[in-house]
């Protein structure tokens, strides 16, 4: 094994190196504030390396593989986590009770990201399961991070119990698949998987385990509770990065291992998609807590993703990637504003945002752009990604699904505009005072706004992803 081959894993190696460096600095110094800028610089370095240095190949007898498309997925995740780290600076540095734990927070967050990267580039089910658990268990620790708050501990309990149950069910599916095919390597399974009752059962188990992580209805019941109880930045991590990583691995599994099952999963995903969009939207309408509202909106958004899977085309794969890239930017933009407001004032209710524009122009404009992008209003990027997804479904002739999706996009417009109306039109005698956010949060929001505005306008980005998706 040569150095060249190890460099295939550059992203994971760099992430683990950062995690270890963070721990060492945390032990060596008493001034914890030094830690944060160092880590941000290292993380930016990792993200940039990911974009520059493309890799292609496989390691350990096919257990680990890396293709340009997988690289792109990792780049999306890295960018998202960079934004989240920047946004959580205010919460970590300004709050006295979090001071001691900056190192721990960053270490756990980065290990979870490393787990997701391993999961995405796994070439067999052993690696996949390990990556999945390495991604999930740290998130449980992060959800319960504010250990003196009851809500956080409650959310943590709910998360770990349901996460472990779902990964157990997934593992049972894997064991049946292993028994019926005699191998756990994706490339062996690709040829030998066929539709028998037992293997269909295994497929359903695996699909429901992953659907739980994406929180597709009916596997969504944990979502709103956990999102509300967790610290805001962890909620944004769960709702964008963790969801995106699970969608990526679902994409890889469906398009490689279960390609022979495509009749079954086309049908299943149509129903899952319809249920998820509709139920997510209906519950989002009646929410008053902004975090909970964004939780249900993210469930509804996840319902649009299966539209891109239908038919199993490589164009569909690139559309899903494009949708998630834009979803990460717009969701993190919305959560970024909520995070800034919550850490400054502690207010989360929608009524608190009445008259927000009068006092905080910049923040409310960022919020408006993000919500417009989530709703899919034309000039911003969200419109293009939704439009492309609809095109994929239309090409395959699923007009009924398309009809439901368009209706749901319209319903979602209603509740996104409720928030915009609260910020810009509603009067309030005591609006939230002017908030001066720190440099990190500003940088994070700026990246989100750039992403929202420019990803849609430049067709070259979609074309670039599309050229990569030929070899999944």
């Amino acid at each position, binding site marked *: 094994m040569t150095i060249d081959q190890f460099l295939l894993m550059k992203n994971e190696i760099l992430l683990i190196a950062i995690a270890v460096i963070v721990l060492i600095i945390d032990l060596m110094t008493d001034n914890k504030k030094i830690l944060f800028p160092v880590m941000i610089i290292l993380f930016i370095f990792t993200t940039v390396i990911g974009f520059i240095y493309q890799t292609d190949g496989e390691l350990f007898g096919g257990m680990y593989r890396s293709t340009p498309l997988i690289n792109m997925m990792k780049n999306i995740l890295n960018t998202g986590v960079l934004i989240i780290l920047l946004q959580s600076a205010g919460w970590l540095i300004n709050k006295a009770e979090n001071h001691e734990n900056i190192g721990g927070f960053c270490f756990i967050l980065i290990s979870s990201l490393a787990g997701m990267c391993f999961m995405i580039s796994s070439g067999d089910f052993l690696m996949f*399961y390990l990556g999945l658990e390495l991604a999930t*268990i740290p998130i449980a620790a992060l959800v*319960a991070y504010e250990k*003196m708050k009851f809500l956080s*501990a409650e959310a943590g*309990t709910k998360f770990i119990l349901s996460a*472990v*149950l779902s990964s157990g069910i997934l593992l049972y599916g894997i064991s049946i698949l292993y028994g019926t095919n005699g191998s756990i390597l994706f490339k062996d399974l690709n040829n030998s998987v066929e539709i028998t009752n037992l293997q269909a059962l295994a497929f359903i188990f695996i699909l429901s385990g992953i659907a739980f992580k994406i929180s597709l209805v009916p596997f969504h019941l944990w979502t709103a509770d956990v999102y509300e*109880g967790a610290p805001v930045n962890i909620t944004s991590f769960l709702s964008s990065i963790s969801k995106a990583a699970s969608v990526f691995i679902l994409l890889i599994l469906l398009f490689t291992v279960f390609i022979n099952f495509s009749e079954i999963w086309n049908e299943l995903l149509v129903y899952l998609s319809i249920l998820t969009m509709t139920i997510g939207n209906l519950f989002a309408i009646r929410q008053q807590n902004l975090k909970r509202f964004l939780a249900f909106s993210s469930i509804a958004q996840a319902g649009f993703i299966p539209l891109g899977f239908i038919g199993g085309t490589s164009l569909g794969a690139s559309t899903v990637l494009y949708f998630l890239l834009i979803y990460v930017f717009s969701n993190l933009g919305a959560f970024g504003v909520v995070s800034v407001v919550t850490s400054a004032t502690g207010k989360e209710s929608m009524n608190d945002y009445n008259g927000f524009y009068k006092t905080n122009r910049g923040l409310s404009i960022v919020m408006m752009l993000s919500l417009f992008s989530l709703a899919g209003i034309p000039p911003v990027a969200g419109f293009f990604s939704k439009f492309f997804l609809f095109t994929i479904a239309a090409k395959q002739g699923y007009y009924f699904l398309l009809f439901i999706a368009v209706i749901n996009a319209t319903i979602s417009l209603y509740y996104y505009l409720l928030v915009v109306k609260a910020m810009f039109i509603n009067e309030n005698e005591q609006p939230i005072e002017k908030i001066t956010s720190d440099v990190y949060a500003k940088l994070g929001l700026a990246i989100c706004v750039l992403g929202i505005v420019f990803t849609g306008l430049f067709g070259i980005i979609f074309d670039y992803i599309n050229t990569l998706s030929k070899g999944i």
Partner: protein
Amino acid sequence: MIDINYYLLTSAVLFSIGVAGVLIRRNAIVIFMCIELMLNSINLTLVAFSAFLGSISGQIFVFIVMTVAAAEAAVGLAIVIALFRNKESVNIDEINILKW
């Protein structure tokens, strides 16, 4: 040699008992025990298949599953302790502040 179907049947029954336990029992610690039962029944399936097929990867998988189960239990019990400090209870019927 015992027929593989007996192993599979046993592990399927154990798995079902585990899932039923997670859904029915109300004590967080007992729920963790049921999850361990689920994971161990999966281990039994994996080893049985491994012996039946004469392939080694199932046995390797079992080691990984045991390690992961330990990690899960460690984090899970730590969270349950945090919960107990706040509420003096590990009964999941009483953790109901977050609701739709």
